[in-house]
């Protein structure tokens, strides 16, 4: 925001003594004053549980917002370090009896803080590059990650680690480099492809490809299209779609987030689909809240509301379809970590479990506090490294208690964080998306499923039998012809 704009939005306060909330994106009073400071949120908050400090609790953070709103405190680093320590897991929102929309409040607050941060020139350049030059352009991200993959696979990484070169760099670089997951051999990309349903189509869906998930977890994205098509969905992956804007919101760049939301709304509504399916929990909630993000945009407000209503999380969508229970066995002991942005914000906890439990042979075990954050939280792993690791270690302790050999979850950030967690905890446990396990179970299916099922499953089966029959006839003919020649 320019100085001129600031002067307009704050008449008579062009140069306030202490910086306060300003502009149309300031936290809304009607949200703020819904909080009656009852304290029910305290025990849901991972940072409060770690510190026992009211300043690191949702109620405390809201009290600080109120104090700034009332002009009692200014936007100073001592105040916003408490907001920065918030992972934005939104567990508090779920337990609040007064229905305080905490997510909305902290997003708006972080956006207000952004211009007042004292960053070094380098930090600013880095943040600006990631937010404005990299994330919105999938081709650039792909190129960057391609280079990273080359670094990992060419042996350069081994060399760098062996020579301890990174120790020469800034503090924390070693730790960060180590937590970068191994990149897969193949990326996934939105190129306007259409994956046909197996059997009679039951629905037509558009899939969000996302920014980092298709790169870090390209093969997992392909399992999503396979699972959808296996369940009778024609899946389109519209070209021209961009990152959902969650990371931008998370660190306070609402304008960029809006630009990306508009772009996605245009791309996804260009052709008719029954639903927009999202495989990443964080992106899912961002898109389900486009309506609120664009509420003040006359051209998009209504469209955004309609679009948000079409957005469905993959687990939610599959269970509602309903999905075809897999026949293939997976003899794994599996536990499930509720991704915050699935359980707390989208309130989806039963569906991933329903999918997992439907897999024959799979033993499902609950871990303690499965809805407590693993410490991933978007850029939190970088900005609040120490705290993020404290939460991760606590999470891994609960995971190990279960004795599971597979840890399932529903969000790329969580997968990366938990994979790093298994590395830190030195356990051979594997971390998987729920949909990856489902896909594996489908691929293990016996060739001939039980007869009499008139589902997509049955249709597929009939098709296969027909093909087999045709093949037999043809080969039989061939054999006869050969015999005839003899």
């Amino acid at each position: 925001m320019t100085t001129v704009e600031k002067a307009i939005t704050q008449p008579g306060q062009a140069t306030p003594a202490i910086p306060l909330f300003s502009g149309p994106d300031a936290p809304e009073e009607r949200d703020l004053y819904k909080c009656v400071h009852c304290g029910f949120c305290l025990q849901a908050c991972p940072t409060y549980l770690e510190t026992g400090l009211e300043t690191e609790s949702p109620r405390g953070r809201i009290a600080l917002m109120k104090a700034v709103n009332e002009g009692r405190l200014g936007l100073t680093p001592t105040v916003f370090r408490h907001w920065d320590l918030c992972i934005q897991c939104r567990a508090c929102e779920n337990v609040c009896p007064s229905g305080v929309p905490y997510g909305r409040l902290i997003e708006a607050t972080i956006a207000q803080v952004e211009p007042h941060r004292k960053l070094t020139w380098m930090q600013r350049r880095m943040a600006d590059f990631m937010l404005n030059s990299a994330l919105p352009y999938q081709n650039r991200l792909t190129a960057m990650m391609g280079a990273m993959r080359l670094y990992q696979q060419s042996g350069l990484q081994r060399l760098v680690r062996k020579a301890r070169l990174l120790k020469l760099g800034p503090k924390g670089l070693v730790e960060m480099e180590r937590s970068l997951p191994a990149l897969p051999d193949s990326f996934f990309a939105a190129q306007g492809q259409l994956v046909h349903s197996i059997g009679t189509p039951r629905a037509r869906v558009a899939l969000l490809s996302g920014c980092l998930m298709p790169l870090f977890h390209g093969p997992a994205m392909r399992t999503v299209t396979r699972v959808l098509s296996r369940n009778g969905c024609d899946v389109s992956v519209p070209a021209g779609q961009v990152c959902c804007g969650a990371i931008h919101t998370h660190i306070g760049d609402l304008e960029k987030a809006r630009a990306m939301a508009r772009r996605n709304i245009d791309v996804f509504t260009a052709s008719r689909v029954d639903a927009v399916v999202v495989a990443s929990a964080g992106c899912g909630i961002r898109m389900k809240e486009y309506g609120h993000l664009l509420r003040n945009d006359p051209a998009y407000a209504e469209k955004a509301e309609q679009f948000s209503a079409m957005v469905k999380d993959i687990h939610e969508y599959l269970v509602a379809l309903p999905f075809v229970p897999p026949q293939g066995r997976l003899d794994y002991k599996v536990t499930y970590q509720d991704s915050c942005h699935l359980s707390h914000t989208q309130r989806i906890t039963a569906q991933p479990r329903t999918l997992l439990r439907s897999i024959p042979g799979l033993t499902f075990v609950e871990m303690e506090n499965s809805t407590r954050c693993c410490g991933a939280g978007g850029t939190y792993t970088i900005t609040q490294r120490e705290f993020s690791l404290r939460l991760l270690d606590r999470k891994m302790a609960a995971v190990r208690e279960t004795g599971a050999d597979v840890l399932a979850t529903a969000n790329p950030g969580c997968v990366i964080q938990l994979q790093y967690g298994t590395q830190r905890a030195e356990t051979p446990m594997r971390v998987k998306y729920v949909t990856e396990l489902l896909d594996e179970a489908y691929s293990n299916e016996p060739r001939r499923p039980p007869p009499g099922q008139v589902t997509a499953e049955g249709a597929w089966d009939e098709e296969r039998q027909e093909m087999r029959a045709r093949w037999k006839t043809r080969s039989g003919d061939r054999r006869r012809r050969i015999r005839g020649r003899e």
Partner: protein
Amino acid sequence: MAHEGLFQELKVVVGEEYVVHAPEDLVVFEYDGSVDKALPLAVVLPATTEQVSGVVKIARSHGVPIVPRGAGTGLSGGAIAAKGGIVVALTRMTRILEIDPVNRLAVVEPGVVNLELSMATAKYGLFFAPDPSSQKACTIGGNVAENSGGPHCLAYGVTTNHVLGMEVVLADGSVAWVGGRTRETPGYDLRGILIGSEGTLAITTKAVVRLVKLPEAVKTLLAIYPRLNDASAAVSDIIASGIVPAAIEMMDDLAIQAAEAAVHAGYPADAGAVLLVEVDGLKESVEVESALVEEVCRRHNPMEIRTAEDAAQRERLWAGRKGALGALGRLAPNYYLIDGTIPRTKLVEVMARIKEISAEAGLPIANVLHAGDGNLHPCILFDERKPGDTERTLEIGGRILKLCVDVGGVLTGEHGIGVEKQEYMPFMFTEDDMASMARLKLAFATDDAFNPGKVFPKGASCVDISQMKAVARAGAGAFV
């Protein structure tokens, strides 16, 4: 800064990180769950009894007040620093030190969260019975200070019935034990005096609590009535029939509307009152008693009766009640929750009077009641931004509490007096009554350093206490 020396001394005891004194940080310690606010001088978070003792000694040597604080969910301003001073937040003392399933007791630190204790003991088939609505967040230390109750205290009793003994830090910083590990200890029941003393006499640093066997069977029944009077009469009748259910909860029409909007419990739009009755115990007795409760409820012309057998169904029936208070935000921006208790037999009369008071003042009042033990929670709905609304609300609050006392009830059921109701103390107590309480306080030699400005009416307490001090100095017996 004027208090730099004090902060420095405190930091030596509890560590740099756990002394909060930046003005920006103190803002979040000026409130608890109530409407009153006051800024402390500093907040200290000790981790051990020794640290609490050290903090008390330092504060006393500097002549600053000490305010103990748990999770800060209290509703009478018990944890706010009414006269400034040091808030001692016990939220880092969260260890469960011992669970003794055979003797059915646990030893806990004060920062242990109420529900966490019950969850930890569930594997032995035991639980901690007092269950305030804030049980997910409130601490045992806070429960002890306020003598908290909850929906199920009808059958199980309040906190004082479930605490066997405590380790406390006294006003001179010394550590003492009151009570013990048994149900009865010889001599004066000092434990009984300290429980519910609202942090004005000592700071609890450990508590030995009773654990109760989880009931073998639970059955919940929800009865919907067209009129509040029918529901109130049913409550009296249930108790008269000789059954003591685990809980009897009631909501009036306004609370029902709010709850319905928030959680869609499926209450009829024209319902005047909803009654929630929970019976627990042995399988056999639950069968018999729940049938009897249902029969009594039917006698009072219900619109509908629903029963729940399993946990999921029970949760659905409770959803409306548990969500009611939070849902009031949908009817008005603010609500003021009052905590009075009346004899059950006066329920019909008092509820009618509250309706009248509401109509006269032009402010709606929604009612949520622990009806079984006559504990009312009228919630006055208002908008603090409207001039005069807050004053009128407080005035009505006083009138309702006066009404409770007039019909033979008391000022508080479970929230304590704190700063919220200190001015109403004369409704119930004569000057002599209060003077004897002040003398008791004197016996603990706190010099009014522990949680000052609470419980006693503002004007009176200082005078009384200084008078008593003079008496004590003159050598007269502190106890009468």
